[in-house]
Each structure stands twice: as structure tokens, then as C-alpha cells.
């Protein structure tokens, strides 16, 4: 089981801040494919990955990253702090 977190407009489009999924996806990209199949909201929010950033276990990474042993994956738009 992996906790999936969504922030900012991804959270709003998907309609959830968080969900637990049973997955054996080997990479973030494979997980994204599975998430897109969950609902139209997921498919729309994750349609253009150029507008999406990902963190695995709270470390920024990229879509090729492996998910071996991962507990938490977060998807969000490019950050706008400061």
C-alpha cells in the first residue's frame, strides 16, 4: 500500500487530498498510468506531466524514479513559495 498525496490544483481537480492505493507499479510513471485509470478526474489532472512535480517519501524526484519500498508519493504543481 502506498499513500498518494495531491496538492494545490491537483488536489482540487482530483477532489481528494490523499488516498491509499494497492500497487505493484515499479516506477512513478507506471503508478501515474494506474492512477489515470481510476477516474476521469485523475486522468484530467495527470494528463500533462510537464505541469506536475513528484516527490517520493518527501524527496523531489522524477517520473522515472523507482517505487521500491516507497511509502508516500505526492503529486503537485511547480512550487510558488517565497
Amino acid at each position, binding site marked *: 500500500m502506498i499513500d498518494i498525496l495531491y496538492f*494545490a490544483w491537483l488536489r482540487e481537480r482530483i477532489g481528494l487530498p490523499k488516498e491509499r492505493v494497492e500497487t505493484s507499479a515499479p516506477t512513478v510513471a507506471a503508478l501515474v498510468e494506474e492512477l489515470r485509470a481510476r477516474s476521469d478526474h485523475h486522468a484530467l489532472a495527470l494528463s500533462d506531466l510537464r505541469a506536475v512535480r513528484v516527490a517520493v517519501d*518527501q524527496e523531489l524526484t522524477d517520473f522515472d524514479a523507482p517505487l521500491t519500498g516507497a511509502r508516500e508519493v*505526492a503529486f503537485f504543481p511547480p*512550487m*510558488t*513559495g517565497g
Partner: protein
Amino acid sequence: MSVPSPHVRVQTEGFDAGAELNAFSQGQPSGAVVSFTGIVRDSGGLQAMEIEHYPGMTERALSAMADEAIRRFTLDAALVIHRHGRLGVGEVIMMVATASRHRAQAFQGAEFLMDYLKSRAPFWKKEIAAEGAAWVAARQTDEDALTRW
């Protein structure tokens, strides 16, 4: 000599940037202190700014950035405070402060922290206006600013 630990706070409560700067500078033997304060700008019709963050990751990311700034610019101290939640125009959003033996390093450390914080710390801003609300889009210039480091 041990490497100094940064002071990092992520909070909803407001804070007095002047008092924070004085406390940071108090007894600071470094010789140079630089600070930056970010304030909610009135961009015409703005009612409030909502700042969302990623609890846990935000603190980790800010601490890692501040550790890196201390290492690269030989800082004696670094402070980062960033608020989240709903903020009004004119309210303080965040501040950074750096202390170093040399002025240039204190300035560079603060600029490095600001540049990284803009596009690598998990914060998202939403502008609330009478006409509606909109997420602030990331700017390519902020991303480009990282290449100089």
C-alpha cells in the same frame, strides 16, 4: 568547529520580522547579517492569499536548503520562517536571514535561499479576489534563477 544548524519554522501565525531579525542578530559575532522579508503584494483587487504546503516535506526541504547555504557560503547562522494559510495584503509571508564573516557571502547565502525556496520548497499560492480564485503559476524566470548556483 561544528557546522551550525539552521533555524527553520513553518507556521500559520504572524510574526514580527523586525523582532526576529533583532533576535537573530543579537550577540552574532559574524560581522555581517542580511535579511529578506516577503510581504503579500496588492496586485489590484486581491482580497487574500492562500498558501498551501506539504507538512513534513516542507520542513525537510527548507532545512536541506539552509544546510546547503551554510555549507556553500560558510554561514555562521541561517534563519527561514515561512507562513501558510490565509494571509491579507501587507501581511508578512516569510523571511530569511543569514550571518557570515563576509558581506558578500551573507548576501549570496540569502539570495541562494530565496531562489531555491521559490521553486523547490513545497508551497503553493492561491490569489483570492472578488472575481474568483486562481493558483499563482510558477514562472520560468524563477526556475532559470537556479542555474546561476
